[in-house]
C-alpha cells in the first residue's frame, strides 16, 4: 500500500461511495471504468425493483450456526447481528431480502478458490438470508468470522467482515457491502475499507457492540443499521457537472 492512486469515476455521492479505481486494491486496476458515468433521468425502470422476489425464506436460513444441516453447531464465538434497514428519510424498509456470506471462525471461506491453510468447519457454510420485518428489522445468529489473508500485497489480511447484499424498495436501493467489527486493528491496513472516502462513511460500515442485544450465556450482540436510497430519491447530486 505505498502508492495510492484514486480514480475520479464514482457512482453516487463522492462523500459516501468509493471510486471505481483505487489502485491499492489491485483488482480495481483492470476492472474500473475510466469514462464518465452517464447522467440519466429516473424513470419507472429505476423506481421499481424486484423487492423480495427471490425464493422462499425459512427461519433456519438466518441461523448460520446450524444451517449447515449436519445437526451439529459451528465452532466460534456465537454472535447476534441485527439492525434496521432504512431509506434516506428514515422510513423502515419492510419485507426486503438480505443475503449474507462470511468466513468461518478461522478466517476460511467454504469456496474452491479459498485454499489458504486455515481449517474448514464441517458445521459452517457461511451463508444466510432473511427478510426484514414490518419495522425494517433483520436479525442473524452466526459466529464471529476470523480475519482472512489475501494476496493483494505482502502480508495482507482482511479485517473480520460479513458480506451483505440487499434489495430495498427499488433499483436505486440495491446495495452490496460489507459489515466490519469495532476496534479491529486491521481496519487501517485494509485497502477495501479505506477506499471509502470519508471517516464518517467508513464508520457507517462498522457495527456497534450492543450489550442490550447480548444474551446471557448465549451470544454477543452487534447492531448495524443500513441506509439505502428511497424510491422518492432525487437523482444523485452530480458534482461531476460542477467540476
Amino acid at each position, binding site marked *: 500500500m505505498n502508492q495510492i492512486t484514486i480514480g475520479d469515476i464514482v*457512482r453516487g455521492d463522492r462523500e459516501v461511495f468509493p471510486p471505481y479505481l483505487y489502485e491499492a486494491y489491485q483488482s480495481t486496476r483492470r*476492472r474500473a471504468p475510466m469514462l464518465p458515468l452517464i447522467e440519466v433521468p429516473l424513470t419507472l*425502470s429505476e423506481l*421499481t425493483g424486484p423487492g423480495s422476489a427471490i425464493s422462499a425464506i425459512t427461519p433456519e436460513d438466518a441461523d448460520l450456526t446450524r444451517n449447515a444441516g449436519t445437526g451439529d453447531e459451528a465452532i466460534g464465538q456465537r454472535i447476534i447481528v441485527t439492525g434496521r434497514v432504512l431509506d434516506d428519510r428514515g422510513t423502515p424498509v419492510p419485507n426486503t431480502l438480505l443475503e449474507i456470506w462470511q468466513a468461518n471462525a478461522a478466517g476460511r471461506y*467454504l469456496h474452491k478458490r*479459498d485454499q489458504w491453510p486455515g481449517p474448514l468447519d464441517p458445521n459452517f457454510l457461511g451463508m444466510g438470508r432473511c427478510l426484514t420485518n414490518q419495522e425494517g428489522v433483520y436479525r442473524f445468529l452466526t459466529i464471529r468470522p476470523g480475519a482472512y489473508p489475501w494476496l493483494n500485497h505482502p502480508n495482507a489480511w482482511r479485517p473480520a467482515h460479513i458480506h451483505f447484499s440487499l434489495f430495498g424498495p427499488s433499483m436505486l436501493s*440495491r446495495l452490496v457491502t460489507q459489515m466490519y467489527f469495532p476496534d479491529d486493528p486491521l481496519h487501517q491496513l485494509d485497502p477495501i475499507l479505506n477506499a471509502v472516502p470519508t471517516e464518517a*462513511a467508513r464508520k457507517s460500515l462498522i457495527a456497534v457492540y450492543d450489550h442490550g442485544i447480548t444474551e446471557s450465556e448465549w451470544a454477543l450482540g452487534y447492531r448495524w443499521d443500513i441506509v439505502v*436510497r428511497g424510491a422518492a430519491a432525487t437523482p*444523485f447530486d452530480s458534482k461531476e457537472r460542477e467540476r
Partner: protein
Amino acid sequence: MKTLPLTSSQTVGPFFAPTLLRTDAVRNVLVQPETVGERIRIEGRVLDGDGVPVPDALVEIWQANAHGCYNHPAEQEAGPLDPSFVGFGRSGTENEGLYWFETIKPGPVPFDQERWQAPHICVTVFARGLLNHLVTRLYFEDEPTNAGDPVLQCVPEDRRATLLARREAGDIAAVYRFAIVLQGPNETAFFNL
C-alpha cells in the same frame, strides 16, 4: 429536508457464488411455459480492460413484462401484470466470462405523460474489483423506437452502440448478444444511478 447518510458500498468479492448463486437464488430462466411474450435469449461476456473474460462476475437484470409493466407496487400504469413473470434475473459468469438469460422481450415502458421508452432491460454488474456495482441498460438493435428513447439520448452518440444488443438467429429463440466491457476503448456506457 434532512436525510440520513447512505451506507457505503463494498465489493462483492470472490466468494459470493455459494450464497448469491445457490440453486434457489440464481435466476437464469425468467420465463415459465405460460409467460406471455416473444422468447429471447440474452447472452454475452463480461470483459476487463485487457479484454480478458471476467470469470467471477454477477449480472442481474430487471425488466418489464410483454405489456411494458413492472411487477412492482409503484407501477401506476395499471397495465396487465403477468402472474408468471417477475422480471428479475441473476446470472454468474464462468471461465469464458459468459452470462445468459432466457426471458421475453419487454414491452415499451412510459417515460412521462406523453413519451415512451424503447424496450430495454436494466443491467447491474458486480465483481471482485468493483467497489460499487455498475448500472447500465440493454437496448435491442433492431428496435425502431430506440431513436426516440429519452434515456438513450443522454448517452453520447459515439458510445450509444455499447448499449445495443446484437440480434442473432437461435435454435429456439432469437439470441441478443450483449458484451459488458468494464474498461477500455469499447467500455460500456455506465450510468450514474
